[in-house]
Each structure stands twice: as C-alpha cells, then as structure tokens.
C-alpha cells in the first residue's frame, strides 16, 4: 500500500509529499522530518516572507486606483469575485425555475428583503452621519487656512496695486533722453513682475495645503460607505432575484404567452371576414413570441470562473491546432535533412514573432471568413486568440519533435533495416515511440507558452476570458478592480502550474528509461 501511494505520487509529480507518506508509515522519522523541512518548510517560509514583504510595501504606494492592495485586500476581492459568480448562477437559476419552487423562493427572497430594509436604513443613517462629521471636520480644518489665504491674498493684491501705482508715477518723471533712467526703469518693472510671481507661488502653496486637508481620508466615512455598499449590494441582489422570479421569470412569461395565444385562438375560431385575417396574423405573432421566450436565456454577465473556463477552452483549442501542425512537420524535419533545410528559414523567421503582432493579422484574416460575429458558431475573437496561441506555441513542439526524431538511436534504425520495415511501420513502431518523450517535452513547453500568450491575445482581441477580465478591470480603475487584477495573477499562476504538472505526468507515462528528457 505504502509503495503504491509513493508510486502514484511519483507519477503524479507530487514527489514533494513523499516524506509525509513515509513519515506516516514511520520510515526513518528523523530523515523524513529533515526532508519535510527542506522541501515543504523552507518553501512555505519563503512564501510567507514574500507575503509579509508584500503586505508591508504595498500600502506605501498610492496610485490613481488607490493604494496597491495588500494580500488581505486581494483575498477579500477574490472572495467578492466568487460571490459575484455564485449570485449570477442563482439569478440564472431563478430565471428558469417554476411552480412551487418558485413560490417558495419568492417567499424566501421577500423575507430577506424585509430583513434588509431596517439594515439599509441604519447604514444610510450612519453614512449620512459620517458624511456630516467628515464635512464638519474638513470645514474646521480648512477654516484657519482659508483665513490665512484670504488675508494673504488681500495683502498681495494691495501690494501689487501700490507697486503698479509707484511705477506709473515714476514713468511720468523719466525724460526723453535719459537712457540710464530708462534702463533702471526696465529693471524695476522686472523686479515687480518677479515679486508678483513669488506671491502667486505662495498663494498656490496655501491652496495646496487646503486641498490636502479637503482630500484627507476619513476612516469613519470609508467604513460607513463600505457598510452601505455591502447592504446595498445584497438588496440589489435580492431585488433582482425577485424580478427573475416574478415578471422576468421565463416560465411565467411562457405561461403568459401561452395564455394570450389561447385567447387569440379562441377569437380566431369565432372571427369571420376581414377580422379572420388579422386574427390569423395575431396567432402567428403570438406563436413567434412564444418560441422566442422558450429559447430565451438569462442575460448573464461573464463571471471570472466562466471566463477561466473559456480561457482554458481557448488554450486547448490553440494547443490542439499547434500539435496537429507541429508534430507532423517536426517528424518530417527529423526524418529528412532536405525537408529540415527547407523549413529552417521559415522556422527561424517566424519563431521569434510576438503574439502581439500575430493577433491583429490573424484577427483580420479570420474576420474575412466570418461575416456576422454574433451568429458564427465560433466567435472570431475566440478563434483568432486560439490561432495566435497556436502560432506562438507550436515552435517548441516542432523543434523538440525534429530533434527527437533526428536523435533516434542508430542501433534501433539498424534493427529496422535488418527487419526491412516499411516506411509506415518504421514510423509508427520505431521513430514515433522513440521520439515520444521529447515530443511530450516539447508539448509541455508549448502549453506553457500558449497559456502565457493566451492572456495577451484575449486582452487584445477582447475575446471573453481571463485577458478580457484583466482589461475590463484595468479600464474600470477602482481600487477593488485593482485588487482583482492581483487575483488574476494568482489564478493564472496556479492554472499554469497545474497544466505543467499534467503535462509532466503525461511525459512520464510515455517515457522509457534512459530516454532523453526535456531540453
């Protein structure tokens, strides 16, 4: 049992848990503890240090979108992303529910709303109070500065007028041929202007002080706003639920549409003459409407988990395209030096091209095939993101495959020659199996590259997915969305890690001993 677990862990690439299992089975406890400290303790400690450093540095920089979020803020916003997702799912469910269940839910939601009303009133009151208090505080702090400002301004204004008057008076006394007096005068005017500038600067400084006081954050106000938002969000959520359970409910609408259709039919059976025609028309329209309602879905906004799923779909599509192109070409390159020579310029030319360049080109080309993006079976933005992923990620697979095929053991080829194997059986029995570990090493790198490229591609093409989420959050520019971008960093990292692990498992499954491993 113990060795089965250990082997499973080894294959799954989770050898890091090896010492824990051994410790549970009491195999050399001191050695296992040492290993646990080394392979789990130290990494965990480093991560902790990173978190502490982050939490320390982040609030010390203020941006347009507020302070750089700390780990706690990021964690909160991750939770809020998840809550949004769950709420949307509930709303969607409400939209479809019917019968008794619907009644039950209406009762439940109404009760919740009732409960929330006093809460809302309370937080509203608190907010108003906090606003008043903040205003009072600000006014109190601003008043003395304001007084200084007014006073200084009046003084400067008087000074300036006096200086001007003195200068104009002086101008009257200067004679026509008195050059030195004239140049003296010029200097005096210059001094006057300089003085005015200095005064302006001083006034601006006082104003800045005032602005700083006015923009000062009031902890009480922020908290009151947050509390209000929390309750208001809930109220909005339940009101929307009530809508989806009530008038907006699909089943309710279907019932209503059916009822009106029945009415029209009854009228039709009794109508005659000209009215018959109009009645028939009405029936047709009512039927159309019913059909539309029956197929209608809740206009659900994209939630982050849904976008993650779509991104994964996109990266797999791109990955499959890349594999289908890269593996056969790689095999041909490995088999035939002529083909390799023919492909080399193309490979070396296109390999370094950035996804940012491929995407617009692919986007336009794909757009040429699809006239109406909304009606197309695959959204062109999605398709072009996938193709961009493929274009950028096929190179590692291609190169590794070519290398794997070219590096096939000469002895194995000799055996194939002695057996006089045909091209196909040589390919499938010898060449591909022996190159498989390297092909998979390439695929693993490709998937990693694809996952990185994908986010940029989605961001550029506005294809729904993680990239689009980042872009939307960036454009939103609030401190909450700023924190959500940090959530994306971790989500992308974890998913990338899992993809890589999966590929390692596959790679190990196809590898045989002393085969060349990843390059």
């Amino acid at each position, binding site marked *: 049992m113990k060795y089965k677990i250990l082997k499973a862990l080894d294959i799954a690439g989770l050898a890091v848990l090896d010492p824990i299992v051994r410790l549970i089975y009491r195999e050399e406890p001191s050695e296992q503890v040492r290993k646990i400290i080394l392979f789990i303790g130290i990494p965990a400690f480093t991560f902790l240090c990173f978190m502490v450093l982050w939490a320390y540095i982040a609030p010390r920089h203020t941006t347009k979108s507020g302070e750089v979020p700390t780990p706690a803020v990021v964690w909160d916003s991750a939770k809020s992303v998840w809550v949004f997702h769950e709420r949307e799912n509930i709303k969607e469910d409400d939209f479809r529910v019917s019968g008794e269940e619907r009644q039950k839910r209406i009762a439940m939601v109404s009760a919740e709303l009732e409960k929330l009303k006093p809460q809302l009133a309370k937080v509203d009151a608190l907010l108003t109070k906090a606003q008043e208090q903040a205003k009072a505080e600000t006014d109190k702090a601003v008043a003395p500065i304001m007084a200084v400002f007014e006073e200084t301004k009046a003084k400067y204004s008087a000074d300036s007028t006096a200086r001007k008057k003195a200068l104009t008076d002086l101008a009257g006394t200067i004679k026509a041929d008195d050059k030195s007096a004239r140049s003296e005068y010029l200097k005096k005017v210059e001094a006057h202007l300089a003085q005015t500038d200095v005064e302006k600067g001083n006034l601006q400084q006082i104003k800045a002080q005032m602005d700083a006081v006015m923009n000062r954050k009031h902890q009480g106000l922020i908290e009151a706003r947050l509390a209000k938002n929390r309750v208001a969000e809930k109220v909005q959520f339940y009101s929307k639920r009530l809508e989806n359970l009530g008038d907006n409910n699909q089943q309710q609408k279907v019932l209503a549409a059916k009822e009106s259709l029945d009415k029209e039919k009854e009228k039709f059976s009794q109508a005659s003459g000209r009215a018959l025609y109009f009645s028939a028309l009405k029936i047709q329209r009512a039927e159309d409407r019913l059909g539309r309602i029956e197929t209608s879905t809740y206009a659900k906004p994209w939630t982050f988990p849904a976008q993650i799923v779509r991104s994964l779909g996109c990266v797999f599509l791109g990955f499959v395209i890349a594999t289908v192109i890269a593996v056969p070409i790689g095999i041909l390159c490995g088999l035939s030096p002529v083909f390799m020579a023919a492909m080399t310029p193309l490979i070396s030319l296109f390999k370094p091209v950035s996804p940012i360049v491929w995407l617009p080109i692919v986007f336009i080309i794909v757009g040429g095939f699809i006239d109406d993006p909304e009606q197309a079976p695959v959204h062109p933005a999605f398709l072009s993101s996938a193709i961009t992923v493929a274009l950028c990620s096929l190179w590692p697979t291609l190169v590794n495959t070519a290398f794997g095929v070219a590096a096939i053991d000469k002895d194995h080829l000799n055996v194939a020659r002695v057996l006089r194997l045909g091209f196909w059986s040589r390919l499938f029995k010898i060449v591909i*199996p022996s190159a498989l570990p390297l092909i998979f090493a390439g695929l693993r790198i490709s998937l990693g590259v694809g996952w990185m490229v994908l986010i940029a591609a989605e961001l550029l093409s506005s294809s729904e997915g993680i990239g689009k989420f980042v872009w939307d959050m960036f454009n939103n520019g609030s401190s909450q969305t700023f924190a959500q971008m940090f959530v994306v960093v971790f989500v992308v990292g974890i998913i990338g890690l899992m993809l890589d692990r999966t590929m390692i498992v596959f790679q190990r499954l196809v590898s045989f001993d002393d085969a060349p491993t990843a390059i």
Partner: protein
Amino acid sequence: MSNNLQDKYVEIVNLVKAYPNPFGEDIRVVDGFDLRIKQGEMIGILGHSGCGKSTVLTMVAGLNAISGGNVIVAGKEIDGAGPDRSVVFQSPCLFPWMTALGNVMLGVKRVYPHASKKERKELAEYYLNQVGLADAMHKYPREMSGGMQQRVGIARAIALKPKMLLLDEPFGRLDSLTRMELQDVIIDILNENKVTTLLVTHDVDEAIYMCDRIVTMTNGPHARVGRINEMPFERPRIRQEVLDHPEYYNIRGSLIQYLEDLEHEKEKQGQEKPPVEEETFNDQDDLPKTPKDKTEKSELVFML
C-alpha cells in the same frame, strides 16, 4: 549445384571498405577480405580491436556500404540489409517501449506476414522459450538484466529464420558467467537447427568453443584474412569436452601467439602493412608475405 552451393553457401569475395580522408584519398580499412562459408558452418572472426572485424560483419549484414567486392549469400548477391541475415548487436538494441514479446513479434510479423496474430504470438513465445525467457516475456527491457536483454536480442534474430546469423561481439558487454550461459544458449539453438553463422569476437576461448573455423584478421588498415584455423572439435559441442580436448591448449596458444605476433609486426613496421598468411593451420613460423602494391590492389577491385 546443391553440393556446390552448400560448400560456398556464403561467399565473401575481395571485400573492401574505404573511407575518404580529408585529402580525397581513400583509406582502405578492409582491403581484400576473402572467405567462403559452408552451409550451417559457424565461423569466428578474431582480431585486435579496431582491425575491421565489425566492419566486415556490418558489410555482410548490409548495414554498411560495400566499397568493393561482393558478398553472395545462397547464390544471390546481397542488396542492403534484410531479415535473411539477422544480426545480434553488441548492445541488445531492444526497443524500450516494447516488451520482450513485442520486440520478438516485430520480427516475426515481418517474416511471417500472412500468419494469424495467434500463430505469430506462439512463434515468438517459442523462440523466447528457447532462449530461456519463458517467464519474462511481458517484461520491458528496463526490467531485465543485460544478459536477459541480450537473450531477447538472440530470440529476435533467430525468430527471423535467417539464412545467416551475424553475431557482432554479442557478449562483449556481459560478465563472464552470463557470457558462458549465453554461449550455451546459442550453441544449443545451433545444435537444433543449423544456421550459417558469423561470429565477431575478441575472446579467443569463446571463438574456440563456438566455431568450426576461426578466421584471424590482420591489423588494419588494409585488414584482410590472416589465417584460417579449423577447429577439430565435434558437434554438438560440450564445454567440458572442448576444454579437455588434447588440442585445445595448442590451438589457443597458437592463436594468441599469432595475434601477438601481428601486434609486434605492427610495432616494428610502424605504418607498414602487417604480415599476411593464408589457409594454414597451427603453423605460425611462416614468414610474412610482402604486401601487394596498393595500386595493383585497386585495379583488382575494379576488375571484380
């Protein structure tokens, strides 16, 4: 015809292997290797490392291009490698992604393309059984020792029902006990069905024990047949009988002496050609013949 063919089942005529050096001149590694092999005979090629024994074998196998001369097997000149001349390589060369059975099946499938899958499997199992791997058929090469892997290699080679079996230092990488076991495996198989065999080795005892005739090669470059020694032992061979045979140590001594002499000649003559002797047995006192002129030799090649 048949009698004639039996005596000259394999004919190696004036075999030449030349590699061009950077100055466009051919360096003849093997130059004029001549040998006739009877059907069912086992020939050992003995020589110092690097003398070109393996080159001769790979040329006969068709894995190495022939620069001059011919190899005729069963009356037909060879054209490339083929399953009629199966090879056991120095390293087992098993496909690591296939089991022992899979490795043997690959060859069986090639030779019996019309047999059913079951029949082919039975055949492969039969040959694996013959090399003593009845219990390890479904093991992968990585799960087997070097000796077991080489047994699979032997089973794969004989499963092809070859006209000729080529053994290229097949036990060179094994320890001496395993080596003896595998020698017996091959002797047993050859006792059962006689296959014309060419064994390349640098182990004198192995050659004496296994072969009907031993061909010693002169040192390269320009390696060729030095001396051909008939072994007086009877078949089926039994190791102890061979060791107890009164001639055994004479033969052994004479072979070793001859090989040492070749080495000394080489040291004495530097780059000049080593002595060449032909078709003599137990007679190492012959003076070396003067080597033929190179140009004369190449003309000969073109004439052939």
